[in-house]
């Protein structure tokens, strides 16, 4: 008789150690390094110098006020849309919700540029219709309320999604029962819908707040010119004005941001915990209120809000991109596509940025897909106590603001890598690694839910047919999760291609990304070029989102972030 060396579980031996070390490298190492630097700076006493610095406390106050008021705006807009689109008989719900989700996927620096182009004294759009503020008057958005407003618009979809998930679970029969008991629509809203949807609302508000704290693009474009710094832009400005205590300072500030985020996320988790009413009643169909005569009014309000937060800013962005020079009024005669020609064909920097971003995004999307498939397989098939911990560790870098992740990787790679004795600091590789860390969770989620839906007997049948691990992977598993894998690639590409927060600290000459290019062009006064680049970015975002929308039917539930 032969010796039975092979264990029955025929995963390759390297699989779990490989996944584990990937997670350690992408999550544990950078965050551990950040924590270590923070503790070290506290022990050395540097932290007291920082804590005595009024700039830090101004930035903290700014961060809290912008995030808090932004959160309130998100609750009003996102909550209103969620109620109207989930519970009321409004027409064109799919289109409305798709348009409402757009701000979430459009990079914040582009949103900020568009709004600046919409409101400022030199707004090409307002000048064209003769409504611009007089020259020399201050840009109204360069203020705490301006930043808060834009954060509110940017993160309203997060509240919408969270609240909508709760509202969708409301049992229709529960509401009908209340109506039969004699409650008016208004009473049903107050007595039934409001208490049942409160957890979703709190959770959404918490995410909106955390996202506001971590946002970099909006306070960078609106705050830095007016010297209004938030914690994330404070890190940036400390980093740009490099000094001896920079590493310790940015580590400490990042740790502060991380702590605020963790508290916010804990509130979100707590709000949703134990508040799952879904068990009661046969859900499936959300309740619908007949609006009656109010229907056109509600529809008009919804479209008007979308017009104000989406259409006008985009038109302003387009207008800014086609004016011949800053401040020149826009007419059909003066309109020019010079800026587009400039960024696509003439300017070396924007061309480099295109190449870098497309390359980084493609490599991240495909590389992470390979990692996500192996990780998802491991998480689903391996019965281990570590799987829960593992998925938690993957989630953390995505949940933390990008600026924290990039600071963590700066600390890891600032010194040359031991043994190899080479440095990747300042090269494109450090950006790539930070992207892998930041977007691992984005890539994993669709693939993991596809694996969870997969009947394990499909793989077992292949095993009995004689197929080894690689064979099963190629012939059975990958084809079966292919739609989710496609969604994962598009999502990661979409986010990675447009992000600014991670690369803002990690880029150097020759490794600019699109986000960095837009920010730098705006910073150096080339508003038209920045706008033109932004128009292209928006076009790309919308195209990719439409592509996902078309795939949505074949994907597991919850894969496309703006569909529920």
């Amino acid at each position: 008789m032969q010796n039975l060396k092979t264990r029955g579980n025929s995963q390759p031996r390297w699989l779990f150690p490989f996944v584990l070390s990937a997670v350690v490298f992408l999550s544990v190492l950078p965050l551990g390094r950040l924590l270590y630097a923070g503790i070290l700076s506290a022990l050395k006493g540097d932290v007291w110098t920082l804590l005595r610095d009024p700039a830090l406390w101004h930035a903290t106050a700014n961060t809290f006020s912008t995030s808090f008021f932004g959160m309130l705006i998100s609750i009003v807009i996102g909550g209103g849309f969620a109620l109207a689109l989930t519970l009321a008989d409004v027409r064109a719900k799919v289109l409305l919700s798709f348009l409402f989700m757009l701000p979430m996927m459009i990079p914040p620096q582009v949103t900020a540029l568009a709004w600046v182009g919409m409101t400022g004294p030199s707004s090409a759009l307002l000048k064209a219709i003769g409504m611009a503020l007089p020259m020399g008057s201050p840009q109204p958005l360069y203020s705490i309320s301006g930043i808060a407003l834009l954060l509110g618009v940017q993160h309203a979809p997060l509240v919408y999604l969270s609240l909508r998930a709760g509202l969708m679970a409301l049992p229709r029969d529960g509401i009908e029962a209340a109506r039969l008991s004699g409650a008016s629509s208004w009473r049903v809203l107050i007595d039934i819908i409001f208490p049942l949807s409160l957890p979703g609302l709190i959770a959404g508000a918490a995410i909106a707040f955390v996202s506001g704290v971590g946002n970099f693009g909006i306070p960078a474009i609106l705050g830095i010119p007016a010297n209004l710094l938030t914690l994330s832009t404070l890190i940036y400005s400390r980093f740009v004005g490099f000094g001896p205590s920079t590493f310790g300072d940015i580590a400490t500030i990042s740790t502060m941001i991380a702590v605020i985020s963790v508290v916010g996320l804990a509130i979100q988790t707590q709000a949703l915990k134990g508040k799952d009413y879904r068990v009661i009643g046969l859900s499936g169909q959300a309740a619908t209120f007949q609006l009656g005569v109010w229907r056109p009014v509600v529809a008009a309000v919804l479209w008007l809000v979308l017009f104000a937060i989406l259409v006008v800013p985009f038109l302003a962005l387009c207008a800014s991109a086609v004016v011949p020079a800053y401040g020149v009024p826009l007419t059909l005669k003066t309109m020019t596509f010079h800026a587009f020609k400039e960024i696509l064909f003439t300017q070396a920097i924007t061309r480099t940025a295109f190449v870098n971003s497309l390359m980084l995004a493609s490599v991240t999307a495909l590389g992470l897909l390979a990692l996500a498939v192996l990780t998802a397989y491991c998480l689903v098939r391996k019965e281990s106590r570590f799987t829960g911990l593992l998925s938690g560790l993957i989630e953390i870098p995505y949940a933390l603001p990008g600026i924290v992740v990039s600071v963590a990787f700066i600390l890891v790679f600032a010194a040359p890598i031991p043994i190899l004795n080479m440095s990747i600091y300042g090269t494109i590789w450090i950006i790539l690694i930070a992207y892998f860390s930041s977007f691992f969770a984005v890539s994993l989620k669709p693939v993991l839910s596809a694996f969870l839906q997969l009947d394990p007997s499909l793989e077992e049948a292949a095993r009995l047919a004689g197929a080894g691990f690689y064979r099963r992977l190629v012939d059975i598993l990958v084809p079966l999760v292919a739609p989710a894998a496609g969604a994962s690639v598009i999502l990661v590409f979409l986010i990675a291609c447009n992000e600014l927060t991670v690369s803002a600290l990690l880029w150097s000459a020759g490794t600019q990304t699109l986000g960095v290019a837009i920010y730098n062009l705006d910073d150096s006064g080339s508003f038209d070029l920045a706008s033109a680049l932004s128009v292209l970015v928006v076009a790309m975002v919308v195209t990719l989102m439409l592509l996902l929308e078309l795939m949505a039917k074949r994907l597991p539930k919850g894969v496309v972030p703006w569909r529920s």
Partner: protein
Amino acid sequence: MAKLILNRISKDFGTGRPAVDDVSLDIREGGFLALLGPSGCGKTTVLRMIAGFEEPTDGSIILGERLLADASGSLPPERRNMAMVFQSYALWPHMSVAENIGYPLKVRGITGEPAKRKVMDALSTVRLESYAARRPADLSGGQRQRVALARCLVTSPDVVLLDEPLANLDRHLKQEMEETFREFHMRSGATMIYVTHDQSEAMALATDVAVMSEGKLLQMAAPADIYARPEGRLVGGLVGQGAILSLPVPTSSHRQLDWNMLAPIFSSAAGDLQKADVLVRPQDVIVSAEGLAATVETALYEGERYAVRLRLDDGQALRAYSREAVAMGDRLSVVIRAGWRL
């Protein structure tokens, strides 16, 4: 093909109670074994250990001259040359029917004309020749089941495992598939192991029935044997219809009891004798002019007869069949033609 031996295998998932506890089975070459038991009795775990999806915590599995698994390790399923029909059929939705059936051949490196011929042979066995190009999603439940069976057939496996394959089918299809399984077994000559909780399926198909309960093997025998001579209350209750009476039968007597032996037991008022369990099949309970007095509790019309539940005057229940209509509350007298001391 060879004899499959399960030698004192156990499986403990760490839940405190072993899922399979010291089970030994010898399955002869070309045999058709039905593993019968209520859900949660460990029969599916035994099947999955034979397939190699689970490793026994103790004991060994041997196929002919090959050791498949023992406590130290286990041969992975892909190297066992077995095939399985899953409860969910487990057809790969992205492949056509022909690709599904041909996949085990493809993995073994058989391609081209020989592979095509084998696939068509397998398809004709299950009478689905014209469905080769369809996708599994376009097939009915019974057709999917037959494709899954054809996929097992194509590589002439040593052992074919069937995990409650009829659980998801309606009664009409069940009968048709039972026919297909029997035919398949005769043609292929493969050793087959069939897991079910439905005793009529097990009796109809298998050459041997193994009854399990709470992880333990209770009895293994041919269907007719296990029906006529079950061992113990559990097997007696699981296999076939019947009622179990508690009677003062001397343990030294024959286990097969007839009316001549039973009548004095009923009439004697021997309360101090130790009682034993006696299984009485409903067809052995005859309504007659004299015998035991009983009251009809329920009478269920089944078309060809009435299935009657009786209550004896001493309070014990009995099942019987009656050709004549009986109603609830009727008083009858019955004779027990045969009983089996468990």
